[in-house]
């Protein structure tokens, strides 16, 4: 079998598509004597050939044939029955982000597909490789308002990298191959494959292609050498350079080389929310996260730098704030794999289109150690001026809990945060050391992401790996709480943290700061459940902590449990806010910080 097909050579380390060599496949070929397979059988064999390890799914009428075939064939991949399709998509995202492989979801038509929409949009915004197979009514009934019919391709068109409706069983295997190829290469993203029921029942010979040719699809590899030489020259000439590192660096597998380069040329590094982990935050060159809730010193560095070296970052509005006032003195080198990202929001002086790992490899030999002593000393002054800290007054504050989790694990854990205040505290007060250990819904900001995504991370570890910590608020955790049952059934030792302030904290924070304390519909106290009882009802361990002095013992108790999820409810104070903060649409220079008396 030719495993050296052209497309395999074009993919990078973390995005390998598996070669079709499963034993079950060869056995099947013997059994059928090269005869016909049903669409459902082709589906199963294609996933095996693709090297799929795990499928998150939920059966229904349109895909019942696939589930029946799965039952008969006992495929090489594991199927996890989730309890809501949205949970399945987030689990696939968590799996994909932590392993670098393509996540797989299988759902039925109509509501099965529409329940996936949020997860697909989330994966699209955060460039997560995922293939979602949706059942569809028989081709003859399409457009007829049949039972559980939905124009899935139409609904998902603007939130997918690409989508396919398979109308002919003979095209099924090659379509699946294309779907995984498109999802996992270039700038990754979600691909939807819509499978009409009659296609799954029809028969065709099975042949899984080893290579893919799509004439309208290509992606950048190495960068233009002339541009890279220009970048090296700009770095050499700059006095106050700053790396601005985004999630693309992790996707590309470039964290290691970036770290090596930054240390060799003495250039400080700030990361975006998705860039956390691409450069060790315990390194003196790290200035932490930038942006709306970034560190004071990272944002000061951005506003004063004369050269921003953007690596796999997209100049998101939560990073830049008021764009005209952002990084006003900086020339910009922008490395990215997506041409549509370069100069989208801020025109770059030196755009470099390419896979950032390959571009950094090209750039490295052209760089020489720089003397940035004065610049680093200035940053150190800012670090002392306004460090990341919180008040210690005997009240239970979320920051202290995140710090305790960091100290418990030494930063060697995969942290999956939800959306809102918990997400920002999780980003600010944990110390990220390794790539792929910080997972969150950044672009879409999907509440309810953390719990199922953490489950996906744990499944991807297959029993080994770092502890998986899911950080939630009391709002978001209820949005996909049903997946707790799945995590318990599979004995996943998740550490589920609920920072319960009885409010939609981030909205409350905005209401306090910008809407004259009119707390419109953000009080959750009357609708919150008893989280400890809820955890136990799902077969998990439930723990509650109400005082700062109990944080450590609660965490210690949670770490004793290894055969099921532990839910730790921390009754934190509602008044705590996330600082620093650049108000939405304001200039980064107008950053609000916690006042000194608030901290000391």
């Amino acid at each position, binding site marked *: 079998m030719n495993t050296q097909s052209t497309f395999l050579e074009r993919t990078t380390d973390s995005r390998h598509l598996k070669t079709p060599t499963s034993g079950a496949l060869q056995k099947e070929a013997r059994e059928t004597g090269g005869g016909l397979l049903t669409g459902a059988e082709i589906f199963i064999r294609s996933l095996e050939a693709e090297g799929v390890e795990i499928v998150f799914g939920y059966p229904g009428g349109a895909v019942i044939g696939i589930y029946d075939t799965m039952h008969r064939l006992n495929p090489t991949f594991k199927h996890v029955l989730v309890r809501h399709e949205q949970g399945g998509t987030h689990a696939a995202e968590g799996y994909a982000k932590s392993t670098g492989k393509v996540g797989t979801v299988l759902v039925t038509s109509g509501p099965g597909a529409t329940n996936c929409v949020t997860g697909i949009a989330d994966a699209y915004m955060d460039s997560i490789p995922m293939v979602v197979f949706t059942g569809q009514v028989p081709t003859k009934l399409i457009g007829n308002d049949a039972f559980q019919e939905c124009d899935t*391709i*139409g609904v998902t*068109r*603007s939130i997918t*990298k*690409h*989508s396919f*409706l398979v109308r002919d069983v003979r095209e099924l295997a090659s379509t699946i191959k294309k779907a995984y190829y*498109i999802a996992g290469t270039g700038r990754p993203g979600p691909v939807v494959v819509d499978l009409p029921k009659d296609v799954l029942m029809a028969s065709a010979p099975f042949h899984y292609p080893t290579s893919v040719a*799509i*004439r*309208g*699809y290509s992606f950048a590899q190495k960068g233009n050498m002339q541009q890279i030489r220009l970048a090296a020259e700009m770095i050499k000439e700059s006095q106050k350079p700053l790396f601005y590192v985004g999630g693309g660096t992790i996707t590309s597998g470039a964290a290691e080389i970036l770290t090596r380069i930054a240390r060799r040329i003495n250039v400080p590094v700030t990361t975006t929310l998705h860039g956390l982990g691409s450069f060790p935050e315990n390194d003196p060159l790290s200035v932490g996260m930038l942006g709306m809730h970034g560190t004071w010193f990272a944002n000061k560095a951005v506003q004063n730098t004369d050269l921003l070296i953007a690596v796999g970052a997209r100049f998101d509005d939560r990073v830049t704030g008021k764009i*005209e006032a952002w*990084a*006003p*003195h*900086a*020339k910009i080198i922008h490395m990215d794999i*997506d*041409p*549509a990202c*370069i*100069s*989208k929001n*801020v*025109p770059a*002086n030196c755009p470099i289109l390419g896979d950032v790992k390959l571009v950094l490899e090209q750039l490295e030999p052209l760089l020489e150690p720089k003397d940035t002593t004065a610049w680093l000393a200035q940053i150190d002054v800012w670090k002392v001026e306004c460090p990341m800290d919180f008040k210690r007054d005997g009240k239970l504050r979320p920051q202290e809990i995140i710090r305790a989790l960091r100290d418990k694990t030494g930063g060697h854990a995969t942290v999956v945060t939800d959306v809102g205040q918990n997400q920002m505290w999780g980003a600010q007060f944990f110390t990220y050391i390794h790539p792929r250990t910080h997972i969150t819904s950044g672009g879409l900001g999907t509440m309810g992401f953390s719990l199922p995504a953490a489950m996906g991370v744990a499944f991807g570890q297959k029993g080994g790996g770092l502890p998986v910590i899911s950080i939630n608020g009391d709002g978001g955790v209820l949005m996909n709480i049903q997946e707790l049952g799945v995590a318990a059934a599979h004995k996943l030792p998740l550490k589920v943290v609920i920072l319960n302030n009885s409010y939609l904290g981030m909205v409350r924070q905005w209401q306090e700061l910008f809407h004259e304390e009119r707390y419109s519909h953000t009080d959750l106290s009357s609708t919150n459940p008893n989280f400890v009882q809820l955890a136990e009802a799902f077969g998990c361990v439930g723990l509650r902590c109400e005082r700062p002095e109990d944080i450590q013992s609660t965490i210690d108790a949670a770490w004793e449990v290894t055969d099921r999820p532990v839910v730790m409810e921390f009754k934190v104070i509602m008044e705590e806010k996330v600082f620093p903060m650049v108000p939405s649409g304001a200039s980064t220079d107008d950053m609000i910080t916690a006042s000194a008396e608030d901290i000391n």
Partner: protein
Amino acid sequence: MLTSQQIFRKQMAGESLHPDGTDTLQRHVVTVLVENTLGALNRVANLFSQRGFELESVSVGEAKDQTLRRMTLVTTGNDRMIGQVLRQLNSLIDTIEVEDVTHFDHIERELCLVQVRCPASERQVLISVVDIFRATVVNITPDSLTFEVTGPPAKINAFIGMMRGYDVLEVARSGRVAMRRELAFEH
């Protein structure tokens, strides 16, 4: 006061340097070769609404290669916006070739049908007017005439302008089709 970098960025984006100045918006003609499927046309059209791009006109037809279709799109924006339109179009998997022909020597044509109320007594006068545009009569009834006219969009605009003096019943424009001119005799 803008820093030199801020001035550079605004100039690169085609934006005004003055706070109350207007952007330098320009009309662009973009030709796109796409896969000959309904999904492909949908995706191209959808991209414009999804990304908030202007879309003035679209025309689609089969290309030389039967498996492809050629679309001609007319869109408006500053340099940054047009750059985005082109890159986003290119990133669609169904697009094979995307070209902004605006700044190349190119041919643009449009076809237009105009139906005008016209009693028999006025026919000759009206036909003598449309002759100037080399329009042809494609339908006639006792009290109306339908003309067909082709040409660059400016000519079509002028023709429709002239017809406004009469009782226009219906106008149908095809939208532009465009193609780069091959300069075979240029040395």
